[in-house]
């Protein structure tokens, strides 16, 4: 029961209180890009969650070894990158060789696996000293947080594209930056951040 609670609490925290995309900017470029294709949200949520869970679980196991405690952070980061690379190449090779996946699907897989959001999860798990169940929860939460951010950006960008009142010079990317800033501000409210002072 405690394991399940840990997992769910960490997942919820990662999605809402600490939405890594909107409150930390992790994977933001990819979220903006994916936001233009609502049909791919489910696929991305699954892939990002999958890669985050597997990578962070393996990294948690590696972190549990005694020698890791004394490792310089650079070595730890290299190990995490190696784990992510290993997981990606195994999944991509299996999909390519056994399921005959197309280049398009593998391209999507690459974007879902090799981004700052997925690569950060093991680092966060380590620095926040999450339990094993918590590490899995944060991996699942990362995928959901990504899709939540992409869906919110999608919703706003449609409105921005239709809005004729926006001055010409602010149309396009400037308006998008302001909109994402407002979303980010909303999530900053969950973390009790000090804005003025």
């Amino acid at each position, binding site marked *: 029961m405690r394991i399940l609670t840990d997992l769910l609490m960490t997942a919820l925290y990662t999605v809402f209180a600490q939405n890594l995309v*909107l409150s*930390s*900017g992790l*994977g*933001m*470029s990819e979220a*903006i890009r*994916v*936001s*233009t*294709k*609502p*049909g*791919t949200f489910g696929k991305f949520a699954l892939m990002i969650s999958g890669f985050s869970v597997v990578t962070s679980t393996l990294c948690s196991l590696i972190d549990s070894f005694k020698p890791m405690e004394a490792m*310089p*952070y*650079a*070595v730890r*980061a*290299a190990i*995490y*990158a190696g784990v*992510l*690379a290993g997981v990606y*190449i195994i999944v991509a090779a299996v999909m390519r060789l056994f399921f005959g996946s197309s*280049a*398009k699907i*593998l*391209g*999507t897989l*690459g*974007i879902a696996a*090799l981004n*700052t959001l997925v690569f*950060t999860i093991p*680092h966060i798990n380590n*620095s926040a000293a999450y339990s094993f169940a918590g590490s899995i929860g944060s991996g699942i939460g990362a995928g959901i947080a990504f899709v939540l951010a992409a869906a919110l950006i999608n919703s706003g*960008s*449609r409105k921005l*594209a239709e809005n*004729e009142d926006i001055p010409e*010079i602010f*149309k*396009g*990317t*400037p*308006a*998008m*930056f*302001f909109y*994402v*800033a*407002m979303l*980010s*501000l909303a999530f*900053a409210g969950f973390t009790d*951040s000090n*804005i*003025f*002072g």
Partner: protein
Amino acid sequence: MSNNISFKDVFIKGAVIYNPVLIQLVGLCPVVAASTTFARAAMLSVVLCVELIVTCTVASALFKKIPRWVRVLLYLIIGTAIICPLLWYIESFSLINLSLGMKIYIPLIAVNSMTAVHCEQFSVKNSVKLSLYDAAAAGFGASIIILIVGAVRELLANSAIGGMPVNLPITFKGMALPFGCLILLGFMAAGLKAFVARMYPQNSADEEPVVSEVFADENSEVTEVEIFDEFWAEPQPEEVPEVPMSVPEKTSVKPAEPSFSTAEEIDELLKSLGIDIDIKGDKQ
């Protein structure tokens, strides 16, 4: 044709007209999350430039025949091979007092979308020399933005620049948060847009795409790399023209309309859920 292109041409396109951060919206993570002071911004800029230049050059020299799904992994490996020894060197010799945040954010540059975009859109389709130019231009363009953002955020949030106190009547701590950075980037993007419209009108004005088209993906009808190709690149028939992220195609832009081809899909989805909201705006 590659030999006819000057560094100036590549530089203006890569650093200004298609600035990676403000126009292409790639590599936002280090800018938004980590560039909270000028010193941190400077460190990120150096690491980003080194990583981008080395990876793009190697990609251009060696990766043209390798499938894309393997190439994207190689970018991570090269990035890690550059960044981790650098981080280890800084840590071991205590050159700079790195916070835990910076220790986390610096390795993230290895999976930076900017590297993947420039390698895929340009480096694997062009000569080593041009790739070097492009990477240097993109790195410079991104670095300038990161440095400005770092300086302004430090000034407004901490009343200091480069660690030196500056007397400001008020501070705005929110600038240290991502949303403060994004607002700043919004104004900078508008400024750059105005600058490009004035200085390079053939590349801006009503030809600027809506954001969704900047990020049209491989399933989209918008083809990739046209803007780069028409100016620099030679066609490479053996290459499968797929890239992780696309730059806008000038001729397909319809700024007044949302470019989402999925409005119908959303309408259908909502109908199937029993919700009668008209996304397309057909029902009046």
